[in-house]
Protein backbone atom coordinates (compact mmCIF):
# COMPACT_ATOMS: atom_id res chain seq x y z
CA UNK A 1 0.00 0.00 0.00
CA UNK A 2 1.42 3.40 -0.83
CA UNK A 3 1.31 6.32 1.54
CA UNK A 4 -1.74 7.95 -0.05
CA UNK A 5 -3.77 4.74 0.04
CA UNK A 6 -2.83 4.14 3.61
CA UNK A 7 -3.94 7.60 4.57
CA UNK A 8 -7.34 7.21 2.96
CA UNK A 9 -7.91 3.91 4.74
CA UNK A 10 -6.78 5.44 8.01
CA UNK A 11 -9.13 8.35 7.49
CA UNK A 12 -12.03 5.93 7.03
CA UNK A 13 -11.52 4.60 10.54
CA UNK A 14 -13.55 6.71 12.90
CA UNK A 15 -12.21 7.11 16.45
CA UNK A 16 -14.44 5.65 19.17
CA UNK A 17 -12.40 6.02 22.30
CA UNK A 18 -8.95 6.72 23.63
CA UNK A 19 -7.53 5.97 27.01
CA UNK A 20 -4.15 6.91 28.48
CA UNK A 21 -2.62 5.74 31.70
CA UNK A 22 0.74 6.04 33.43
CA UNK A 23 2.59 2.75 32.99
CA UNK A 24 3.42 2.65 36.70
CA UNK A 25 -0.27 2.84 37.52
CA UNK A 26 -1.16 0.24 34.92
CA UNK A 27 1.54 -2.13 36.14
CA UNK A 28 0.49 -1.76 39.76
CA UNK A 29 -2.32 -4.31 39.47
CA UNK A 30 -2.71 -7.31 37.16
CA UNK A 31 -6.49 -6.95 37.28
CA UNK A 32 -6.25 -3.73 35.28
CA UNK A 33 -6.01 -5.88 32.14
CA UNK A 34 -9.31 -7.58 32.89
CA UNK A 35 -11.03 -4.45 34.12
CA UNK A 36 -9.95 -2.21 31.26
CA UNK A 37 -10.77 -4.78 28.60
CA UNK A 38 -14.23 -5.38 30.05
CA UNK A 39 -14.90 -1.67 30.44
CA UNK A 40 -13.66 -0.68 26.99
CA UNK A 41 -15.40 -3.70 25.43
CA UNK A 42 -18.74 -2.51 26.75
CA UNK A 43 -18.32 1.02 25.58
CA UNK A 44 -17.27 0.23 22.04
CA UNK A 45 -19.85 -2.54 21.62
CA UNK A 46 -22.96 -0.72 22.75
CA UNK A 47 -24.16 0.00 19.23
CA UNK A 48 -23.09 -3.26 17.65
CA UNK A 49 -25.69 -5.80 16.56
CA UNK A 50 -25.34 -7.97 19.67
CA UNK A 51 -23.67 -5.69 22.22
CA UNK A 52 -23.42 -8.29 24.98
CA UNK A 53 -21.64 -10.86 22.90
CA UNK A 54 -19.64 -8.35 20.89
CA UNK A 55 -18.22 -6.95 24.07
CA UNK A 56 -17.40 -10.43 25.36
CA UNK A 57 -15.36 -11.20 22.24
CA UNK A 58 -13.78 -7.76 22.08
CA UNK A 59 -12.76 -8.03 25.70
CA UNK A 60 -11.11 -11.41 25.05
CA UNK A 61 -8.85 -9.88 22.43
CA UNK A 62 -8.11 -6.63 24.19
CA UNK A 63 -7.28 -8.44 27.41
CA UNK A 64 -4.62 -10.50 25.65
CA UNK A 65 -3.10 -7.36 24.15
CA UNK A 66 -3.09 -5.63 27.51
CA UNK A 67 -1.53 -8.70 29.10
CA UNK A 68 1.25 -8.52 26.50
CA UNK A 69 1.94 -4.94 27.48
CA UNK A 70 1.71 -5.80 31.17
CA UNK A 71 4.22 -8.62 30.83
CA UNK A 72 6.57 -6.89 28.43
CA UNK A 73 6.15 -3.19 29.17
CA UNK A 74 8.49 -0.97 31.17
CA UNK A 75 7.39 1.39 33.92
CA UNK A 76 8.33 4.69 32.29
CA UNK A 77 5.92 6.66 30.16
CA UNK A 78 2.35 5.96 29.26
CA UNK A 79 0.19 3.24 27.86
CA UNK A 80 -2.20 4.51 25.25
CA UNK A 81 -5.11 2.50 23.98
CA UNK A 82 -7.33 3.79 21.18
CA UNK A 83 -10.21 2.08 19.41
CA UNK A 84 -11.49 2.96 15.95
CA UNK A 85 -14.21 1.60 13.74
CA UNK A 86 -14.68 1.20 10.01
CA UNK A 87 -17.75 -0.75 8.92
CA UNK A 88 -17.68 -4.19 10.49
CA UNK A 89 -14.11 -3.80 11.74
CA UNK A 90 -12.83 -2.48 15.05
CA UNK A 91 -9.23 -1.35 15.19
CA UNK A 92 -7.22 -1.30 18.40
CA UNK A 93 -4.08 0.80 18.50
CA UNK A 94 -2.05 0.07 21.60
CA UNK A 95 1.15 1.96 22.39
CA UNK A 96 3.35 1.21 25.38
CA UNK A 97 6.99 1.62 26.38
CA UNK A 98 9.15 -1.51 26.41
CA UNK A 99 12.81 -2.51 26.38
CA UNK A 100 14.46 -3.02 22.96
CA UNK A 101 14.60 -6.82 23.17
CA UNK A 102 10.85 -6.92 23.82
CA UNK A 103 10.31 -4.83 20.74
CA UNK A 104 12.13 -7.41 18.73
CA UNK A 105 10.26 -10.39 20.24
CA UNK A 106 6.92 -8.78 19.64
CA UNK A 107 7.91 -7.89 16.08
CA UNK A 108 8.83 -11.50 15.37
CA UNK A 109 5.70 -12.89 17.00
CA UNK A 110 3.50 -10.53 15.00
CA UNK A 111 5.15 -11.41 11.72
CA UNK A 112 4.49 -15.12 12.32
CA UNK A 113 0.76 -14.45 12.35
CA UNK A 114 0.92 -13.25 8.76
CA UNK A 115 2.64 -16.28 7.30
CA UNK A 116 0.85 -19.06 5.47
CA UNK A 117 1.77 -21.60 8.14
CA UNK A 118 0.07 -19.69 10.98
CA UNK A 119 -2.45 -22.44 11.71
CA UNK A 120 0.26 -25.12 11.83
CA UNK A 121 2.26 -22.93 14.16
CA UNK A 122 -0.80 -22.37 16.31
CA UNK A 123 -1.40 -26.12 16.65
CA UNK A 124 2.26 -26.48 17.44
CA UNK A 125 2.10 -23.84 20.13
CA UNK A 126 -0.81 -25.68 21.71
CA UNK A 127 0.76 -29.11 21.61
CA UNK A 128 4.23 -28.25 22.77
CA UNK A 129 5.39 -26.52 25.89
CA UNK A 130 8.25 -24.88 24.11
CA UNK A 131 6.60 -22.15 22.08
CA UNK A 132 6.91 -18.78 23.69
CA UNK A 133 3.88 -17.35 25.33
CA UNK A 134 3.96 -14.31 23.09
CA UNK A 135 3.90 -16.35 19.90
CA UNK A 136 0.95 -18.29 21.25
CA UNK A 137 -1.01 -15.15 22.11
CA UNK A 138 -0.70 -13.51 18.72
CA UNK A 139 -1.35 -16.75 16.85
CA UNK A 140 -4.45 -17.29 18.97
CA UNK A 141 -5.76 -13.84 18.09
CA UNK A 142 -5.07 -14.33 14.40
CA UNK A 143 -6.53 -17.83 14.15
CA UNK A 144 -9.43 -17.74 16.59
CA UNK A 145 -10.48 -14.10 16.33
CA UNK A 146 -9.48 -13.38 12.71
CA UNK A 147 -7.29 -10.55 13.97
CA UNK A 148 -4.97 -8.81 11.51
CA UNK A 149 -2.02 -7.62 13.51
CA UNK A 150 0.83 -5.31 12.58
CA UNK A 151 3.40 -3.13 14.23
CA UNK A 152 3.41 0.54 13.45
CA UNK A 153 6.54 2.62 13.44
CA UNK A 154 6.80 4.45 16.68
CA UNK A 155 9.65 6.17 18.42
CA UNK A 156 11.63 3.93 20.80
CA UNK A 157 11.25 3.03 23.55
CA UNK A 158 7.58 2.74 22.61
CA UNK A 159 5.96 0.11 20.51
CA UNK A 160 2.60 0.37 18.72
CA UNK A 161 0.43 -2.60 17.91
CA UNK A 162 -2.38 -2.13 15.42
CA UNK A 163 -4.96 -4.88 15.47
CA UNK A 164 -7.93 -5.04 13.12
CA UNK A 165 -10.85 -7.13 14.35
CA UNK A 166 -13.70 -8.17 12.07
CA UNK A 167 -15.63 -9.48 15.08
CA UNK A 168 -19.11 -9.24 13.58
CA UNK A 169 -18.41 -12.53 11.81
CA UNK A 170 -17.67 -14.33 15.06
CA UNK A 171 -20.58 -12.77 16.89
CA UNK A 172 -23.30 -13.42 14.33
Amino acid at each position, binding site marked *: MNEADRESVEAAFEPLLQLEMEMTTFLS*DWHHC*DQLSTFIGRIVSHNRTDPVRHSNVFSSVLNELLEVSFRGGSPDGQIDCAVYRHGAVERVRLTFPCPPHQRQFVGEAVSKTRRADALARHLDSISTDLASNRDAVFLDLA*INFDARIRLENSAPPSITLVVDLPLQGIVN
Partner: protein
Amino acid sequence: MSTGSFSKPFSAAFDINSQEFSLTGVIRPRSVDEIAVNISMLKGAIDQVRGVLYINVKRLIQMNNTAFHAFVRVFLDACRARPDLRFVIVTSSVVGWTTRMFSHLNKIEPQITIEVYDSKFYPGQSFVEDASFIPILRTQTKMTWRHERTILPRHGMRPGIAMADICCGIGDFAVLVQKEFQPLRIVALDHSRASLAYARDVATGFGITDIEYTYGDASEMLLEDSQFDFVSCRHSLQIFNRPDVLLAELYRICKPGGRVYVTNEKNSHCLGEPRSQSIQWTYNEVAKLFSHFEMDVELGPKSRRYFADAGFEDIVVESIMVSNLDGDPQDFADVIAAWENVYAGEMAVKRGDSPEFIQRFRQGFQDHIFAALHPKGYAGWPIWVASGRKPR
Protein backbone atom coordinates in the same frame (compact mmCIF):
# COMPACT_ATOMS: atom_id res chain seq x y z
CA MET B 1 -11.73 0.60 39.81
CA SER B 2 -12.27 -1.92 42.50
CA THR B 3 -10.87 -5.33 41.86
CA GLY B 4 -13.48 -7.77 40.73
CA SER B 5 -16.19 -5.22 40.16
CA PHE B 6 -16.39 -6.11 36.48
CA SER B 7 -15.84 -9.80 36.54
CA LYS B 8 -17.79 -12.78 37.51
CA PRO B 9 -15.85 -14.98 39.85
CA PHE B 10 -14.24 -18.07 38.49
CA SER B 11 -14.86 -21.56 39.69
CA ALA B 12 -13.96 -25.11 38.82
CA ALA B 13 -15.89 -28.15 39.93
CA PHE B 14 -15.82 -31.87 39.40
CA ASP B 15 -18.81 -34.16 39.62
CA ILE B 16 -17.80 -37.82 39.69
CA ASN B 17 -21.33 -39.08 39.01
CA SER B 18 -21.61 -37.33 35.69
CA GLN B 19 -17.83 -37.54 35.10
CA GLU B 20 -17.94 -33.83 34.40
CA PHE B 21 -15.31 -31.21 35.12
CA SER B 22 -16.66 -27.70 34.68
CA LEU B 23 -15.06 -24.30 34.40
CA THR B 24 -17.20 -21.20 34.85
CA GLY B 25 -16.77 -17.45 34.96
CA VAL B 26 -13.74 -15.36 34.10
CA ILE B 27 -10.35 -17.06 34.23
CA ARG B 28 -7.55 -14.62 33.63
CA PRO B 29 -4.64 -15.59 35.85
CA ARG B 30 -1.28 -13.86 35.66
CA SER B 31 0.53 -17.14 36.08
CA VAL B 32 -0.30 -20.81 36.23
CA ASP B 33 0.35 -20.78 39.98
CA GLU B 34 -2.91 -18.92 40.52
CA ILE B 35 -4.88 -21.81 39.10
CA ALA B 36 -2.69 -24.60 40.48
CA VAL B 37 -5.54 -25.84 42.67
CA ASN B 38 -7.84 -26.13 39.70
CA ILE B 39 -5.21 -27.86 37.61
CA SER B 40 -4.67 -30.46 40.29
CA MET B 41 -8.44 -30.89 40.62
CA LEU B 42 -8.51 -31.65 36.90
CA LYS B 43 -5.67 -34.14 37.24
CA GLY B 44 -7.49 -35.78 40.14
CA ALA B 45 -10.63 -35.99 38.02
CA ILE B 46 -8.75 -37.69 35.21
CA ASP B 47 -7.42 -40.28 37.64
CA GLN B 48 -10.92 -41.09 38.84
CA VAL B 49 -12.90 -41.39 35.62
CA ARG B 50 -13.34 -44.19 33.13
CA GLY B 51 -14.38 -43.92 29.52
CA VAL B 52 -15.27 -40.27 29.02
CA LEU B 53 -14.48 -37.11 30.90
CA TYR B 54 -16.81 -34.24 30.05
CA ILE B 55 -15.23 -30.82 30.20
CA ASN B 56 -18.05 -28.33 30.60
CA VAL B 57 -17.11 -24.81 29.46
CA LYS B 58 -20.70 -23.68 28.77
CA ARG B 59 -20.44 -20.87 31.28
CA LEU B 60 -16.86 -20.00 30.68
CA ILE B 61 -17.13 -16.28 30.04
CA GLN B 62 -13.48 -15.44 29.62
CA MET B 63 -10.28 -17.46 29.62
CA ASN B 64 -6.87 -16.04 28.85
CA ASN B 65 -4.12 -17.83 26.98
CA THR B 66 -2.23 -18.61 30.16
CA ALA B 67 -5.17 -20.57 31.56
CA PHE B 68 -6.06 -22.14 28.22
CA HIS B 69 -2.58 -23.53 27.74
CA ALA B 70 -2.36 -24.77 31.30
CA PHE B 71 -5.58 -26.77 31.11
CA VAL B 72 -4.90 -28.00 27.59
CA ARG B 73 -1.48 -29.26 28.65
CA VAL B 74 -3.24 -31.56 31.11
CA PHE B 75 -5.72 -32.85 28.51
CA LEU B 76 -2.99 -33.59 25.99
CA ASP B 77 -0.73 -35.30 28.52
CA ALA B 78 -3.65 -37.41 29.68
CA CYS B 79 -4.45 -38.46 26.11
CA ARG B 80 -0.95 -39.81 25.76
CA ALA B 81 -0.89 -41.51 29.16
CA ARG B 82 -4.45 -42.84 28.99
CA PRO B 83 -5.37 -44.06 25.49
CA ASP B 84 -8.56 -45.54 27.02
CA LEU B 85 -9.88 -42.13 27.94
CA ARG B 86 -11.92 -39.75 25.78
CA PHE B 87 -12.53 -36.08 26.40
CA VAL B 88 -15.73 -34.36 25.34
CA ILE B 89 -15.50 -30.60 25.62
CA VAL B 90 -18.96 -29.12 25.93
CA THR B 91 -19.11 -25.54 24.64
CA SER B 92 -21.95 -23.11 24.01
CA SER B 93 -22.99 -21.46 20.78
CA VAL B 94 -23.38 -18.23 22.75
CA VAL B 95 -19.69 -17.85 23.50
CA GLY B 96 -18.54 -18.68 19.99
CA TRP B 97 -14.82 -18.24 20.51
CA THR B 98 -14.61 -21.09 23.03
CA THR B 99 -15.79 -23.50 20.35
CA ARG B 100 -13.16 -22.16 17.98
CA MET B 101 -10.37 -22.28 20.52
CA PHE B 102 -11.06 -25.78 21.75
CA SER B 103 -11.86 -27.29 18.37
CA HIS B 104 -8.16 -27.27 17.45
CA LEU B 105 -7.52 -29.89 20.09
CA ASN B 106 -9.29 -32.50 17.99
CA LYS B 107 -6.73 -31.95 15.24
CA ILE B 108 -3.98 -32.71 17.71
CA GLU B 109 -5.62 -35.57 19.61
CA PRO B 110 -8.66 -37.33 18.08
CA GLN B 111 -9.52 -38.55 21.61
CA ILE B 112 -10.74 -35.01 22.26
CA THR B 113 -14.03 -34.00 20.69
CA ILE B 114 -16.16 -30.86 20.92
CA GLU B 115 -19.91 -30.66 21.44
CA VAL B 116 -21.96 -27.48 21.25
CA TYR B 117 -24.52 -28.14 23.95
CA ASP B 118 -27.32 -25.75 23.09
CA SER B 119 -28.40 -26.98 19.72
CA LYS B 120 -30.85 -29.38 21.40
CA PHE B 121 -30.89 -28.68 25.07
CA TYR B 122 -34.39 -29.21 26.28
CA PRO B 123 -37.32 -31.21 25.01
CA GLY B 124 -39.56 -28.43 23.69
CA GLN B 125 -36.75 -26.44 22.09
CA SER B 126 -37.48 -27.18 18.46
CA PHE B 127 -41.09 -26.03 18.73
CA VAL B 128 -40.58 -22.77 20.54
CA GLU B 129 -37.54 -21.62 18.57
CA ASP B 130 -39.16 -22.35 15.27
CA ALA B 131 -39.94 -19.48 12.93
CA SER B 132 -43.52 -20.76 12.67
CA PHE B 133 -44.04 -19.36 16.16
CA ILE B 134 -43.42 -15.79 15.04
CA PRO B 135 -46.95 -14.89 13.88
CA ILE B 136 -48.44 -16.24 17.12
CA LEU B 137 -46.13 -14.20 19.29
CA ARG B 138 -46.85 -10.99 17.47
CA THR B 139 -50.62 -11.15 17.81
CA GLN B 140 -50.40 -12.49 21.37
CA THR B 141 -48.36 -9.51 22.48
CA LYS B 142 -50.73 -7.10 20.77
CA MET B 143 -53.60 -8.59 22.81
CA THR B 144 -51.86 -8.84 26.15
CA TRP B 145 -50.31 -5.39 25.88
CA ARG B 146 -53.71 -3.71 26.32
CA HIS B 147 -53.73 -5.19 29.81
CA GLU B 148 -50.06 -5.12 30.63
CA ARG B 149 -49.50 -1.44 29.91
CA THR B 150 -51.72 -0.57 32.86
CA ILE B 151 -50.50 -3.41 35.04
CA LEU B 152 -46.76 -2.89 34.60
CA PRO B 153 -46.39 0.20 36.84
CA ARG B 154 -47.81 -1.82 39.74
CA HIS B 155 -44.93 -4.24 39.27
CA GLY B 156 -42.12 -1.71 39.25
CA MET B 157 -42.04 -0.46 35.67
CA ARG B 158 -41.19 3.23 35.44
CA PRO B 159 -39.19 5.60 33.23
CA GLY B 160 -35.43 5.77 33.49
CA ILE B 161 -34.75 2.23 34.63
CA ALA B 162 -32.41 -0.44 33.30
CA MET B 163 -34.41 -3.44 32.22
CA ALA B 164 -33.95 -6.82 30.59
CA ASP B 165 -36.54 -8.85 28.73
CA ILE B 166 -35.41 -12.45 28.85
CA CYS B 167 -36.81 -14.86 26.25
CA CYS B 168 -37.90 -11.77 24.35
CA GLY B 169 -39.16 -13.67 21.32
CA ILE B 170 -39.60 -11.24 18.44
CA GLY B 171 -38.89 -8.32 20.73
CA ASP B 172 -42.22 -6.55 20.34
CA PHE B 173 -42.72 -6.24 24.10
CA ALA B 174 -39.36 -4.47 24.38
CA VAL B 175 -40.41 -2.05 21.63
CA LEU B 176 -43.76 -1.33 23.30
CA VAL B 177 -42.10 -0.78 26.68
CA GLN B 178 -39.52 1.49 25.11
CA LYS B 179 -42.20 3.68 23.57
CA GLU B 180 -44.51 3.73 26.58
CA PHE B 181 -42.11 3.87 29.55
CA GLN B 182 -38.78 5.14 28.21
CA PRO B 183 -36.40 3.01 30.21
CA LEU B 184 -32.77 4.09 30.15
CA ARG B 185 -31.53 0.74 28.89
CA ILE B 186 -33.18 -2.38 27.51
CA VAL B 187 -31.40 -5.64 26.91
CA ALA B 188 -33.57 -8.24 25.16
CA LEU B 189 -32.31 -11.82 25.05
CA ASP B 190 -33.51 -14.89 23.21
CA HIS B 191 -32.11 -18.15 21.92
CA SER B 192 -33.84 -18.07 18.55
CA ARG B 193 -31.76 -16.44 15.85
CA ALA B 194 -34.83 -16.25 13.60
CA SER B 195 -36.80 -14.33 16.24
CA LEU B 196 -33.90 -12.00 16.98
CA ALA B 197 -33.42 -11.18 13.32
CA TYR B 198 -37.12 -10.39 13.14
CA ALA B 199 -36.86 -8.36 16.35
CA ARG B 200 -34.08 -6.19 14.96
CA ASP B 201 -36.16 -5.53 11.85
CA VAL B 202 -39.23 -4.59 13.89
CA ALA B 203 -37.19 -2.19 16.03
CA THR B 204 -35.58 -0.61 12.98
CA GLY B 205 -39.03 -0.24 11.45
CA PHE B 206 -40.08 1.77 14.50
CA GLY B 207 -36.91 3.82 14.29
CA ILE B 208 -35.72 2.35 17.58
CA THR B 209 -32.00 1.76 17.75
CA ASP B 210 -31.22 1.45 21.40
CA ILE B 211 -32.62 -1.95 22.33
CA GLU B 212 -29.72 -4.33 22.84
CA TYR B 213 -30.90 -7.58 21.29
CA THR B 214 -28.66 -10.42 22.26
CA TYR B 215 -28.42 -14.10 21.51
CA GLY B 216 -28.17 -16.18 24.65
CA ASP B 217 -29.37 -19.06 26.75
CA ALA B 218 -31.65 -17.76 29.49
CA SER B 219 -30.51 -20.45 31.89
CA GLU B 220 -26.82 -19.65 31.39
CA MET B 221 -26.63 -15.94 30.66
CA LEU B 222 -23.51 -13.91 29.96
CA LEU B 223 -25.11 -10.93 31.70
CA GLU B 224 -23.52 -9.98 34.97
CA ASP B 225 -25.10 -10.08 38.43
CA SER B 226 -27.32 -7.34 39.87
CA GLN B 227 -27.56 -5.12 36.77
CA PHE B 228 -31.24 -4.49 36.14
CA ASP B 229 -34.03 -2.68 37.99
CA PHE B 230 -36.65 -4.70 36.15
CA VAL B 231 -36.33 -8.14 34.60
CA SER B 232 -39.24 -9.47 32.59
CA CYS B 233 -39.75 -12.98 31.29
CA ARG B 234 -43.05 -13.47 29.56
CA HIS B 235 -44.70 -16.79 28.74
CA SER B 236 -41.42 -18.56 29.11
CA LEU B 237 -40.95 -19.99 32.60
CA GLN B 238 -43.69 -22.35 31.50
CA ILE B 239 -41.74 -23.76 28.57
CA PHE B 240 -38.61 -24.67 30.55
CA ASN B 241 -38.35 -28.11 32.04
CA ARG B 242 -36.58 -26.46 35.00
CA PRO B 243 -38.40 -23.15 35.66
CA ASP B 244 -36.61 -22.80 38.99
CA VAL B 245 -33.22 -22.66 37.23
CA LEU B 246 -34.43 -19.93 34.92
CA LEU B 247 -35.97 -17.96 37.78
CA ALA B 248 -32.67 -18.16 39.68
CA GLU B 249 -30.94 -16.59 36.67
CA LEU B 250 -33.52 -13.80 36.50
CA TYR B 251 -32.95 -13.21 40.20
CA ARG B 252 -29.20 -13.13 39.72
CA ILE B 253 -29.20 -10.37 37.08
CA CYS B 254 -31.79 -8.28 38.97
CA LYS B 255 -30.48 -5.51 41.23
CA PRO B 256 -31.20 -5.85 44.95
CA GLY B 257 -34.40 -3.88 45.39
CA GLY B 258 -35.34 -4.42 41.73
CA ARG B 259 -38.17 -6.62 40.52
CA VAL B 260 -38.57 -9.69 38.36
CA TYR B 261 -41.81 -9.84 36.38
CA VAL B 262 -43.20 -12.97 34.72
CA THR B 263 -46.36 -13.92 32.87
CA ASN B 264 -47.56 -17.48 32.44
CA GLU B 265 -50.66 -19.35 31.43
CA LYS B 266 -52.86 -22.03 32.82
CA ASN B 267 -53.95 -23.46 29.51
CA SER B 268 -56.64 -25.76 30.86
CA HIS B 269 -58.49 -22.60 31.95
CA CYS B 270 -58.93 -21.23 28.45
CA LEU B 271 -62.64 -20.99 27.93
CA GLY B 272 -65.45 -20.06 25.59
CA GLU B 273 -69.18 -20.00 25.07
CA PRO B 274 -70.89 -21.50 23.18
CA ARG B 275 -69.39 -24.98 22.81
CA SER B 276 -67.66 -24.78 26.15
CA GLN B 277 -67.23 -28.51 26.64
CA SER B 278 -65.35 -29.18 23.45
CA ILE B 279 -63.17 -26.14 24.15
CA GLN B 280 -62.42 -27.26 27.67
CA TRP B 281 -61.56 -30.78 26.56
CA THR B 282 -59.05 -29.51 24.03
CA TYR B 283 -57.28 -27.16 26.43
CA ASN B 284 -57.02 -29.88 29.05
CA GLU B 285 -55.32 -31.89 26.35
CA VAL B 286 -53.03 -28.94 25.52
CA ALA B 287 -51.74 -29.04 29.08
CA LYS B 288 -51.09 -32.78 28.83
CA LEU B 289 -49.42 -32.40 25.46
CA PHE B 290 -46.98 -29.82 26.77
CA SER B 291 -46.20 -31.87 29.83
CA HIS B 292 -45.28 -34.72 27.46
CA PHE B 293 -42.53 -32.39 26.23
CA GLU B 294 -41.67 -31.39 29.81
CA MET B 295 -43.28 -27.97 29.63
CA ASP B 296 -45.77 -26.83 32.23
CA VAL B 297 -48.33 -24.55 30.63
CA GLU B 298 -50.33 -24.81 33.86
CA LEU B 299 -47.66 -22.82 35.66
CA GLY B 300 -49.49 -19.47 36.01
CA PRO B 301 -50.96 -19.86 39.50
CA LYS B 302 -47.83 -21.68 40.69
CA SER B 303 -45.70 -18.60 40.12
CA ARG B 304 -46.35 -17.37 43.66
CA ARG B 305 -44.71 -20.50 45.04
CA TYR B 306 -41.81 -20.32 42.57
CA PHE B 307 -41.14 -16.71 43.61
CA ALA B 308 -41.27 -17.54 47.30
CA ASP B 309 -38.93 -20.51 46.87
CA ALA B 310 -36.50 -18.39 44.87
CA GLY B 311 -36.17 -15.91 47.76
CA PHE B 312 -38.20 -12.96 46.45
CA GLU B 313 -40.11 -10.64 48.77
CA ASP B 314 -43.16 -8.42 48.26
CA ILE B 315 -44.58 -10.92 45.78
CA VAL B 316 -47.50 -9.59 43.76
CA VAL B 317 -49.70 -11.91 41.70
CA GLU B 318 -52.69 -10.99 39.59
CA SER B 319 -54.54 -12.53 36.70
CA ILE B 320 -55.87 -11.05 33.53
CA MET B 321 -58.38 -12.42 31.08
CA VAL B 322 -57.54 -11.65 27.50
CA SER B 323 -60.77 -11.99 25.56
CA ASN B 324 -62.45 -11.54 22.21
CA LEU B 325 -64.02 -8.34 23.57
CA ASP B 326 -60.66 -6.60 24.05
CA GLY B 327 -60.17 -5.47 20.51
CA ASP B 328 -60.70 -7.04 17.15
CA PRO B 329 -62.16 -10.55 17.75
CA GLN B 330 -60.36 -11.63 14.59
CA ASP B 331 -57.02 -11.15 16.42
CA PHE B 332 -58.19 -13.57 19.04
CA ALA B 333 -59.28 -16.02 16.37
CA ASP B 334 -55.91 -15.69 14.59
CA VAL B 335 -54.02 -16.58 17.75
CA ILE B 336 -56.13 -19.68 18.27
CA ALA B 337 -55.64 -20.72 14.66
CA ALA B 338 -51.89 -20.40 15.15
CA TRP B 339 -52.05 -22.48 18.35
CA GLU B 340 -53.98 -25.14 16.46
CA ASN B 341 -51.30 -25.24 13.77
CA VAL B 342 -48.44 -25.74 16.16
CA TYR B 343 -50.13 -27.83 18.87
CA ALA B 344 -52.27 -30.12 16.70
CA GLY B 345 -50.31 -29.83 13.47
CA GLU B 346 -46.81 -30.31 14.88
CA MET B 347 -46.63 -31.29 18.54
CA ALA B 348 -49.41 -33.89 18.60
CA VAL B 349 -48.02 -35.40 15.42
CA LYS B 350 -44.59 -35.56 17.00
CA ARG B 351 -46.06 -37.27 20.05
CA GLY B 352 -47.52 -39.88 17.71
CA ASP B 353 -51.22 -39.15 18.29
CA SER B 354 -53.87 -40.89 16.23
CA PRO B 355 -55.73 -39.05 13.46
CA GLU B 356 -58.96 -39.44 15.47
CA PHE B 357 -57.40 -37.76 18.47
CA ILE B 358 -55.95 -34.97 16.37
CA GLN B 359 -59.29 -34.36 14.74
CA ARG B 360 -61.07 -34.01 18.08
CA PHE B 361 -58.17 -31.93 19.38
CA ARG B 362 -58.49 -29.55 16.43
CA GLN B 363 -62.24 -29.29 16.92
CA GLY B 364 -61.83 -27.60 20.31
CA PHE B 365 -59.69 -24.86 18.74
CA GLN B 366 -62.23 -24.46 15.96
CA ASP B 367 -64.97 -24.14 18.58
CA HIS B 368 -62.93 -21.57 20.47
CA ILE B 369 -62.62 -19.57 17.24
CA PHE B 370 -66.35 -19.99 16.70
CA ALA B 371 -67.01 -18.59 20.19
CA ALA B 372 -64.62 -15.69 19.60
CA LEU B 373 -66.31 -14.63 16.38
CA HIS B 374 -69.88 -15.37 17.46
CA PRO B 375 -71.89 -12.14 17.87
CA LYS B 376 -73.02 -13.24 21.32
CA GLY B 377 -70.03 -15.40 22.14
CA TYR B 378 -67.22 -15.04 24.63
CA ALA B 379 -63.73 -16.47 24.36
CA GLY B 380 -61.11 -16.08 27.06
CA TRP B 381 -57.41 -16.71 27.57
CA PRO B 382 -56.36 -16.28 31.21
CA ILE B 383 -52.85 -15.17 32.10
CA TRP B 384 -51.16 -14.91 35.48
CA VAL B 385 -48.81 -12.01 36.09
CA ALA B 386 -46.39 -12.26 38.99
CA SER B 387 -43.53 -10.17 40.26
CA GLY B 388 -41.27 -10.14 43.26
CA ARG B 389 -38.57 -7.92 44.72
CA LYS B 390 -35.03 -9.13 45.17
CA PRO B 391 -34.04 -8.39 48.79
CA ARG B 392 -31.56 -5.59 49.35
